């Protein structure tokens, strides 16, 4: 059996994160087109969009500071770093031992913080509006996210995602109400964090409703390409965090080549199904008013707290 060095697995994983993220977004957009009875632009349209943006010139506002120019690189770099920590194809990642799930949440917080700063840097009204909305959502989503993750880590007694997945794979399967609650909460939080439909619409530039698009309105060229790519990776990573904590079966636990390949195939299958689930949620719901978002995320917090409580009460 061919065994791979952990660092090669890490490299494979990062390449997968970079390449599969636009593919997943393409799949989601394609499904959405089908559900709405439109013709889709194809599975590879996100790649073409990113390539096109890389070929265009960057146009900077006159009063843009270093922060504005620095943010796209930081956002992209930090997001890819998070992609190196999450066990996507294998549990034996060298990076996974460095940082746990709290660090991953913190990495996403850094991304959010710098995007919000860059949104305000130029001084346009839309940028500031988008930043303030994004921070409101962040302040509500992050505690709920941590609570949901803590509920899962109560069962495995660790906060490292790799160890959590390992425990779920190897322990005897038990019906756990706490896991169900945490999963529900995690779905709600992921929708908010990745800017999907009930909270934000990724496909529109309508002034009054946009959140994430408002912050990055002033970006162009390769800066915009990096930020959009990072956004796609973020969606991909939230899906893989969900897989690693709730459905880790199939992720390779050893370093040999066959298991890793099986891990990749399982990943593609799971992502395919989760894309369908995401689109069912998105086409079933309408975008809610911004003032309903605290209620939405409040119920996510409630669900994750109930999950934690039911761990103590019922298990």
């Amino acid at each position, binding site marked *: 059996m061919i065994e791979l060095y952990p660092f090669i697995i890490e490299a494979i994983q990062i390449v997968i994160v970079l390449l599969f993220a636009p593919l997943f977004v393409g799949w989601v957009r394609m499904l959405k087109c089908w559900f709405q009875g439109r013709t889709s632009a194809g599975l590879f349209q996100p790649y073409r969009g990113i390539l096109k943006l890389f070929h265009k010139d960057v146009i900077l506002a006159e009063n843009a500071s270093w922060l504005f120019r620095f943010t796209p690189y930081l956002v992209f770099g930090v997001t890819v770093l998070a992609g190196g920590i999450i066990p996507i194809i294998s549990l034996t990642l060298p990076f996974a031992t460095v940082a746990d799930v709290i660090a991953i949440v913190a990495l996403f917080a850094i991304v959010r913080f710098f995007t919000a700063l860059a949104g305000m840097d130029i001084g346009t009204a839309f940028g500031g509006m988008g930043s303030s909305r994004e921070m409101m959502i962040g302040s509500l989503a992050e505690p709920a996210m941590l609570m949901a993750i803590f509920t899962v880590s109560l069962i495995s007694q660790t906060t490292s995602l790799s160890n959590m997945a390992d425990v779920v794979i190897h322990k005897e399967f*038990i*019906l756990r*109400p*706490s896991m*169900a*609650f945490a999963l529900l909460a995690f779905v709600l939080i992921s929708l908010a964090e990745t800017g999907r439909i009930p909270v934000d619409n990724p496909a529109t530039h309508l002034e009054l409703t946009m959140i994430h698009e408002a912050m990055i309105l002033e970006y162009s060229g390769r800066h915009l390409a990096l930020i959009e790519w990072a956004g796609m990776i973020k969606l991909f990573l939230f899906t893989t965090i969900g897989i690693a904590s709730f459905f880790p079966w199939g992720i390779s636990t050893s370093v040999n080549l066959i298991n890793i390949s099986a891990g990749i195939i399982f990943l593609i299958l799971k992502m395919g199904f989760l894309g369908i689930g995401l689109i069912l949620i998105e086409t079933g719901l309408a975008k809610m008013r911004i003032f309903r978002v*605290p*209620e939405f995320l*409040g*119920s996510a*917090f*409630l*669900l994750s*707290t*109930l999950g934690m*409580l*039911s761990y*103590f*009460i*019922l*298990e």
Partner: protein
Amino acid sequence: MSINLAAQVNSIMAALILLTSFGLLVQRRMYGLLHLFAWQGLFLSISTAIVGYVSGSHHLYISSILTLALKVILIPYILHFLMKQLHIHKEVEQLVNVPTIMLIGIALVIFSYYLTAPIRELSTLVTRSTLAVALATVMLGLLMMITRRHAVTQIIGFLALENGLFFAATSATYGMPLVVELGVALDILIAAFIFGIFFFQIRTTFDSLDVEQMTKLKEED
């Protein structure tokens, strides 16, 4: 089905009952409330059947079927009929400060967990851990009656409270004697009819089902 698996399914049902209680607490639409109440009844009925299976006491099957007939079909149907007659089935109730209500609800769950912890130590039943959920359901029903102003929602809160009591009885003691359960079921049914009459009376007097209007009833000085 092994006893262990039955206990697991029972705790899932308990979790779902708790979830529907919270759903009732924050649901604004009348139809939504009715559906949630019917779901809660269904989970309660399944849970009762499971407890009956675990303990081998067959009268629990009868009370499970009774719950199914009364709380999932008959009472929601009566309430639905009343809502149609009163033209409130599309009404949306104003609810203030939903996050605070949710936080109070969470505090009540923790409180009932601490309250039932000693009983949990004494009991030897497989289903003893659901007692805290049952008490929490009672308290959440009470909270719903306090925070809502609409007469129909208060009644649904009361019925949810009764669900909690029934759940406590099955999970803590494997059910009351069948005679008592039949009596309670009949009481609930009669209560549903009396509530209906009251709704019409309240509406003809005040032109609304908002119980805030009843503050007008005090004497002028």
